[in-house]
Structure formats: C-alpha cells, structure tokens
C-alpha cells in the first residue's frame, strides 16, 4: 500500500534503530504525544529496538482517555432521555462514566448510535425531526474541524433538533503544562503528526523557544517514529533544541488553513478539564456564543456533575508520562479492557490498553523512581 508499506519497511526501520544506538551516548526521556503513536510503538515493539538509555514515555494524546468523567456522565444522562438520539464516535461507547458507559445506556434502551463523521449526526437530525440529536463532539485538533463543520451546517440549515456536547482539547497547552509540571522528566517530544496536519507547526516553534526543548513532528508508522526518535536523540546529544518536521508528507508549516478557519468560526479557546490531568488553562475549544443554540450543555442545562473516584487508578501519572501502565497495581488484574478502571484502558489508543494488548507477557522488570517496577524494555 503506497505511503504505508515503505514506512513499515523492516530494513529501513532496523537501520534507523542502529543509527539511534550509535547516536545515543547519554540517557534520554522522550515523549510521544499521540495515542496513535503509542499504539504503533507497542504494536511493532519499537521500544524494544531502542538502546537501553532511550526511554519512551506516553503522552496524553488519546482523546478518549482525557475526556472528563463529567462529559461521559452528561452523555449517558442525555442518551437516557427518550427524545434524544446520542451520536458518538465508536470508541467513546465503552468509556466508563461514574455509573455507566454508553454501551450500558444502550442496553437499557437508550438510542445511542455510532458515526464515523459528525456530519452523519446532522443527517440523522434532518431525518428525525421529532427527536433531539446530540453529537458527542470530542477530540483534539484533528476532529475539531469536522465537528465544527457539523455545527456550521446545522446553523446554516437552521436545524433546531441538533446539538453538540463538546469536550475538545488542544495539544500545545498540554505540552506547556507538562513542561511546567514539577515532576516533568521529558526532554524531547514527538509532536502529533495529524494534529500538525491541521494546525501546522507554528505553535510548536513557540514551545521549542519557550522551554528549550527539542520537538520533532512525527508520523504514525514504525519508520516515522524511529526517524523522529533519531532526530530527537541527535539534537539532544548535540545540545540543540529545534523544531523539525519528520512527517513532511502530511504536515506543512501553515497547516490546513480552511480547517483552521472553520474551527475559529465555530469554536473559541477556553479552559478545559482533562481527565487524569486536571484543569489546563486555555486548553479546550468551546462553542462560540453564535452557536449557543447548538450547545447541548446550554440547551439541556446539564448541571455540573462531580463524582468522587477511588484512588487506585494511576491514569493521571500515566497520561503525564510519569509512570508506565505496568506500574499500576491494578493493571491486568482489577483493570482490564473488559472492566476498565480508567479511560487509558478503554480506547485502543490508550497507553494502558496498548500495553495490555501487546505487552502483557513481558516478564523481566526493573526498578524506576515511579512506582515499584516497570517491565524491562529489552
């Protein structure tokens, strides 16, 4: 398959791994931001190919994982109303809320439908004028343009039975939060290629400047990731901090301007709560005042739901790259994809799910400062 097979080529991948081993003299901690990248690393065992000193930690870039519990609870509550059709991306259905997930709500009679595109939700609204259609609009900058387009279409058509429950998050403020966290260990970032396809590279240049941290925009195939790791290691060893773009086949410096335009028209930047991380200032997208009529939060007057949660789940530390999923005492025992304690075990892009799925057999463990132990990467 063109644009895929060459980036999965074992010969190229192994030669990049060799170059990394040659280049890495000192130990480095690198973070891949995006859950899609985490998935590839686990699926292909990229970390097994790295020299001992180069450690990959997994970032908060799984949209399913960081969607706040309150949003899930609101979605479940909305879905349970007889007049509502709740439309969502597939992997949101299994994310545990405080009492139920959307699959559970569906089993109890709620009308919950899976869509591949938010404009499908608009179509459902058009063909069900007597029902209220709510789209669960979550994600990073990648899903934001399409979600914005759905709201824009609905407004243009004056669809009065369509609304969105919005929980949108932005990558650069999250990197900023990680860099200013007192526990930060990350020395270089692989920026999320698809987010940058939409948003371009400018914001990452600012992060490089503000924190003196090297950032390489990376893709999602093994060769992409190894090339990005090599670029980071070379910069770190040379004492440099620059922005590099490894994913040039998709990412331009400007990004996708029409996509940015529709986002800006529909959404405005605001404070956002991240599940597992907490509130990050100006890290979310909210519907603008002009779109208030399409904002499920305002239409249905959903009250703020606050829930006490048990302390066993360490998704907070996992999402900040402070711990590995296998550091969690519940991992694979009390927390599995069938009975997830936390969102990173739910989505295929969640770090815990990726470890559970691809890495459970790893027997050797070594000490880290995080928790008791993590599995040996070699």
């Amino acid at each position, binding site marked *: 398959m063109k644009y895929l097979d060459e980036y999965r080529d*074992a010969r190229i991948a192994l030669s990049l791994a060799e170059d990394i081993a040659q280049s890495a003299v000192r130990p480095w901690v690198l973070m891949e931001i995006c859950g899609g990248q985490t998935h590839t690393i686990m699926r292909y065992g990229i970390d097994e190919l790295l020299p001992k000193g180069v450690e990959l930690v997994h970032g908060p870039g799984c949209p399913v994982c960081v969607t706040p519990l309150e949003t899930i609870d609101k979605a479940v509550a909305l879905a349970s109303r007889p007049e509502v059709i709740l439309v969502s991306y597939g992997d949101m259905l*299994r994310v545990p809320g405080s009492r139920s997930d959307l699959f559970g709500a569906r089993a109890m009679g709620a009308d919950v439908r899976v869509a591949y595109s938010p404009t499908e939700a608009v179509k459902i609204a058009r063909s069900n004028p007597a029902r209220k259609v709510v789209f669960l609009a979550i*994600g990073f900058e990648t899903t934001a343009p399409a979600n914005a387009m759905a709201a824009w279409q609905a407004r243009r058509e004056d669809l009065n039975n369509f609304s969105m429950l919005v929980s949108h998050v932005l990558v650069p403020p999250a990197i900023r939060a990680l860099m200013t966290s007192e526990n930060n260990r990350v020395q270089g970032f692989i920026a999320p290629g698809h987010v940058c396809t939409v948003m371009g590279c400018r914001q990452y240049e600012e992060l490089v400047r503000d924190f003196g941290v090297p950032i390489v925009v990376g893709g999602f195939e093994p060769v992409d990731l190894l090339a990005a790791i090599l670029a980071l290691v070379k910069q770190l060893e040379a004492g440099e901090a620059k922005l590099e773009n490894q994913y040039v086949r998709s990412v331009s410096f400007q990004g996708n301007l029409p996509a940015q335009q529709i986002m800006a028209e529909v959404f405005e930047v605001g404070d956002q709560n991240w599940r597992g*991380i*907490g509130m990050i200032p100006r890290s979310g997208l909210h519907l603008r005042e002009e779109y208030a009529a399409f904002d499920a939060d305002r239409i249905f007057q959903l009250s703020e739901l606050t829930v006490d*949660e048990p302390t066993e*789940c360490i*998704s907070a530390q996992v999402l900040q790259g402070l711990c590995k999923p296998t550091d969690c005492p519940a991992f694979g025992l009390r927390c599995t*994809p069938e009975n997830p304690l936390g969102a990173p075990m739910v*989505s295929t892009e969640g770090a815990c799910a990726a470890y559970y799925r691809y890495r459970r057999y790893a027997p050797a463990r070594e000490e880290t400062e995080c928790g008791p132990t993590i599995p040996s990467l070699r």
Partner: protein
Amino acid sequence: MRAHNSIAALICPTPLPAKDAVVLGHGSGGKLSAELIRDVFLRSLNNPVLNRLDDQAIVKIGGSRLAFTTDSFVVKPLFFPGGDIGSLAVHGTVNDLAMGGATPLFLSAAFIIEEGFSINQLRRVVDSMHGAAEAAGVEIVTGDTKVVEKGKGDELFVTTTGIGIVPEDLILSADRARPGDKVLLSGSIAEHGIAILAQREGLEFETAIQSDSAALNALVADMLLASREIRCMRDPTRGGVSSTLNEIAQQSSVGIELEETSIPVREEVRGACELLGLDPLYVANEGKLIAIVAPDAAEDVVRAMRRNPIGAAARIIGMVREDNPGTVTMRTPLGTTRIVDMLAGDQLPRIC
C-alpha cells in the same frame, strides 16, 4: 477544578458496576461472549459434550458418531456482496460440522420473520439457501416459521441446525494442539466482516470487497485425505483469527506464535482496515479455516488445500510452542514480538 500539577489530587475513574444486562459485546465472540457462556449457559447446562466448547457436539448414536450443531444468523444487511443471510446460514452450519471432521448431511432451518417483511425477499433468501445447500451436498429436511409483530424483530432471523457423520477414528478438538505443530490458514482474512461493515448504514464507504462466505466441507475432505495428523480445525468467524487461536491456545495450554508477514490480507481489505482503524486479525471470516497440523504432515496438508480453489492461498502462518501457554504472540516484520490478545467485545472504530 484542579490545577494540572497537583498530582495527588488527580481524578481517577471509578469501576464499572457489575454487568447485569446483556450488551452487544456479549455477542462479539470475544471475552464477553466466553464469560456469558461460562456464567450463564455452562453453569446450568454443564455436561461433558457441551463442556468441550467445540463448534459442534460429537455424540455416539447406535454405531455412528454424529456431529451436531446449531447457529443463528442475524446479519444486517440481509443481502451483501458475496452472499446473503440464506447462503450464510447454510455455510455457517455446514462449516461448524466440517470443523469436527464430519461429512455434513442434513440441515433444519427456522425462520423468525417480522410482520411486513417482503415475501419476494423471503423467496430470494430461501432460494439462496437451496443453492448453497445443493452446492455443499446437504439437504434441508425440516424447518419452522414464526412471525413476530412489526417492530418486535428486525426483518428476518434464521437459525440452522445440522447433523453429519464423523469417521470412527477421527478426533479433532481444540485441546489437541501440541508444541511443534504448525498453524495453517486456508486463505486471506477479514473479507466477510469488511464487506458487511462497508454496507452498513451510515458508513459511506464504497468497496468491491466481497464476503468470503463459502462451504468448507469439500476442502476439509481433501485435507483429511492428505493426512490424519490434523489436530484441530476451526473456522475463524466472529472475533476473527485472533479469537479462534486464543481459544485453541487456552484449551490446549500451549503458546501459539504467528509470523505477521505470512498472514494473507487482500490489498483492498487492508486499506479498509487501515481507514477504519480495525485489525484484520479480529474481523470475521465465513469461508476460511485454521488447522493445527502435526509438523511432518503440514506441507502435505497445505499442498492438498491449494489444489482446492477455496484453499488456493493456504499457507503456514505460525507454530505451536511450549512457552507462554494460553497466549498467542506474533513476530512483527521488525523482528519484535507482541501479544495477539482476544478482544473483550467488538472492535470499535478509532476516533482519529
């Protein structure tokens, strides 16, 4: 609201309440299905034949060993590229018998029809069943029809039950895999699941991908002629190749190691899976089989399979090992190893 750097006060999600209602994942063929079978069905119905959890029961009546199986079909849409609910209902039951080494002989067919369903469409389904049965060399000799009120069913559900004869000395079962055995696959995977998904409402996705729905009994007969050193056969339907191999690994208490590069997936199926974020190893097949074969016999069996058009792309995709019992692993193209897990429920399309 909490500050992002006060780690002690961070949110931690709560456990799900115990599942007290059936969810769709219980029908996925993954871990939830296995739990349902164990906690509800085996708990009450438990007996030595059922407890084997093979695709078919093998019972002795008089001097004969009979294979006996049943399967319900609720596929949507009823007509899809490469087949329909009628042919699928015949192939599914014929294949479940064939996986036990049986020669399928007779089928029953039961229809649950929703009020208002078109007689013409029903005719098409039944004609298709007739065609599939004739091609597979079985007869549908008894049946039942029930009509439910509009809204109380989804157009048409079909249940088929089948019986066949198993040779006296032949025992195929998922608990017979031994270290050193080879894992054989009869052809490229994931075609049925992707063909159905591409047709589903809401997915604007045009492909030429056809379901692989087919009867496997002739292929099985060819394989058994080539060698009796076949330990077990399974058709990887719901849950795909990964669920089937996990079941074999668990029931035989062995490890199974696959070679990723040796698993055939057609280009357009691979493309569809990439686009939808699905792993072909978990996508359903309806005309493929997996066989665990003794090492010395494996090449002979593969050759025999390749002479049959349905097995033309047959190949060895891995081997049975002593280590990691109960676990399926895969050597990636990069030479690293990963787990091939059994999914909890259905695969969910990824958000981005």
